[in-house]
């Protein structure tokens, strides 16, 4: 893992540009990116399972059966039971909901903050831009995991705390993109002209900035989702994230920090671990594909 905030550049973009509209070109490139498609399918299945399966199965993820502790997979418990006799499959599915919830909402928080601040920095420029950019540099370089752990200790671990703190430290990447694009809009005098016509900053943001930044922002937001899921799992694994008894993939793995469990009870730690890895991988695949699709120049 390692919580890398700096977005990596694009992966292999398949070349091939026809004489189609930019939109269709992007779509084709995206779907050509087989990994992205695979990621989309994978994530779709996971999401579907996490949302629907608990209802179908009807097993309470928090139901404790003290007489059936650490049962290996078998009838009744397809993935066995955990150390408090709870059904691992039910917890895994509910944990998926938490992961998706944290991933999407913190990415949303980060993107919105980045959009606002980036537009402000780009629109006003000058010292406002200087201060905000400097601030973004520092936040970006600061290991967010450490900050989030410290914050969790301050306010006590809880789901909202987690979402907010992940979101609050994820804004610099979208900020940079929005700032850059707004700045270039400004240089094109387009904004100055519109502003001269009496349009307010919010209107300018909505009408002129948002349409331009939406594509690159989607890419960044997707990667932010992967980042947030990873952070949630890590913080929960360290025992400072989603508080029990709510299941999360991270805190399920927290239980496996013992050699005895690691060696003799793989059903307790392999499923959540694989689930985290595959989910993040799927989101990263999608993000990667989106990036290629959104940025035609990469096709070079």
């Amino acid at each position: 893992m390692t919580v890398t905030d700096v977005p990596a550049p694009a992966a292999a973009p398949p070349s091939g540009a026809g004489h189609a509209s930019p939109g269709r070109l992007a779509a084709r490139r995206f779907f050509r990116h087989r990994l992205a498609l695979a990621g989309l399918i994978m994530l779709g299945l996971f999401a579907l399972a996490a949302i629907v399966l608990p209802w179908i199965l009807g097993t309470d993820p928090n139901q404790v059966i003290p007489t059936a502790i650490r049962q290996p997979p078998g009838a009744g418990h397809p993935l066995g039971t955990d150390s408090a006799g709870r059904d691992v499959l039910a917890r895994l599915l509910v944990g998926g909901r938490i992961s998706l919830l944290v991933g999407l909402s913190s990415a949303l928080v980060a993107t919105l903050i980045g959009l606002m601040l980036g537009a402000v920095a780009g629109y006003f420029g000058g010292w406002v831009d200087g201060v905000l950019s400097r601030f973004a540099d520092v936040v970006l370089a600061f290991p967010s995991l450490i900050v989030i752990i410290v914050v969790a200790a301050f306010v006590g671990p809880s789901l909202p705390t987690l979402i907010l703190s992940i979101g609050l430290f994820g804004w610099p990447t979208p900020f940079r993109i929005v700032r850059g694009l707004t700045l270039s809009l400004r240089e094109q005098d387009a904004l100055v002209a519109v502003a001269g016509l009496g349009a307010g900053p919010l209107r300018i943001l909505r009408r002129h900035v948002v349409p331009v930044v939406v594509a690159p922002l989607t890419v960044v937001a997707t990667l932010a989702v992967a980042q947030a899921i990873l952070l949630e799992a890590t913080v929960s694994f360290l025992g400072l994230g989603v508080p029990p008894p709510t299941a999360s993939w991270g805190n399920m793995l927290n239980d496996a920090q013992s050699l005895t469990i690691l060696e003799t009870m793989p059903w307790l730690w392999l499923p959540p671990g694989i689930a985290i890895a595959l989910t993040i991988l799927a989101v990263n695949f999608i993000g990667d594909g989106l990036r290629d699709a959104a940025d035609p120049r990469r096709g070079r």
Partner: protein
Amino acid sequence: MIMRRHTRALLAGLAVLALALAGCSGPSGGDAGGSRDATVQLYQAPRGFNPLLASIGPDHLMEQLHWDSLVSAAGDSTYGARLAERSEVSADGKTWTFHLVQGAKWSDGTPFTAKDVVFTYNLYANPKSGSGYVGKFANVNGAKAFKDGTATSVAGFQAPDDNTFVIQLDQPNVAFLDELVQPIMFILPEHVVGKFPVDGLTNNPFWRNPTVGLGPYVFSRWVTADQVEFKANPNYRKKLGLDRVFAQYLTTDAAMAQLQTGKLDYAQVAAPDAKRVEGLKGVKLQRAEGPGIFALHTAVDSGKLANPLVRQAIMYAIDRDALVKQVLNGEGKVVDTLVHGPSWAVPSGLTHYGYDPAKAKALLAQAGWNPATEVRIELTPGQRDRDTAATIIAAQLKEAGINAKVQNYQAAELSQALGKRDFDLLISAYGQFTIDPASMNARLSCAAVGGTNITAYCNKDLDALLNQGIATKDQAQRQQIYAQAQKIVNEQMPILVMYVPNTIAATSDRLKGFQLNPSVVDAFWNAADWSVS
């Protein structure tokens, strides 16, 4: 060209790393194989050697190697002689006389005398020293004058000669010895510590790097923040079987792995790991019924669980047999009172709270319990069996109609909750309840409210019995008194006792003379008898 430059830079980097590695490759020269060294586990990171503080387990263990005290808890849950070869109480129960060993010396060669004991006990009775045990001596003659500042020392601590130490009490207490048992009340060297100002004594660097000791193996150095080296005390009163002891903080897992490689000679074993360890080659597993309890504590004064019927309901609602069998893998025993030993102190006919959810519901209904009332189960997370037990207890209470939830607290928050008297069912495992039934005084007497009686339970009938119990010398009478007291405790459940976990220790085959002490914090009590083959 460029590549070559990069390669060179990489090589230079590697060299630096190698140096860094060599620098932190830890204690060199200690090869555990053939030497007369032993390595023992500390189950938490050690802090130091200040016995005045109400300190943590690993410090207790290290202090047993470095310091010595008047009396210890022996392996069979009786009093063990230490610096006091014999002790006796007068007929009126007010004068305790300790006959100290002859010719004992501090590690620097200075003779150990009763003056050291008087000096140290005065420190323990002095809140300015940071002492965590002032409350134990409220009953000592002159303690109040000392505390008020009208006397410069406690009159009741006396040294009639170099080998005799006397404590004069205001009120009789035939079980006073129980207050002084290891791993606390270690004796300090007056010729060293006496030179330090009492104000700010806690912060004195001496406690981190003590220069003088009295135990079999004295502090030598901090090898790392997690490892301490002890050397055989050249002036110890017995011939020692080891040259050095290394005490190393290791998590349970790391300890199990090191046992396997034969690098570790002693480790505490968690119940779920016992089976695994039993299968290891070259490792011996020893187990004993522990002296402590795993219990739920409620702030009785907060009123939430003040009704004994509710507490009884909670007892019936929890399947404690299943907890012992499943969570502890059978390594424990269900008990129904706080004091569960010695056998004469446990009367027959106590109510056994077997798992009975229906009865729990009936009792709750009778008590008029509001099912919406939230009951927190507070614990410091990190110990797997406890975490699991808390989860199960919460679920079972919910089934019985109590709105229970697990509340994880870090140590600092937990202490604060205790200070604020704001806790519902706080999980703690502790204590030494098997030598003398008077050990329940600290937890249940009215006098200890605000101190070690953390539930603040105060019952006049029980209190009268407890006072009578320590004032009576006749064994038959004491038995009767405590039978009554135990009945009250059993019925009222001021502390909701769950079970007594076994103490399990693993030792390497090469370590000889290790004798298991049921109390985990007393594991090093007979270190003077250790040797390696």
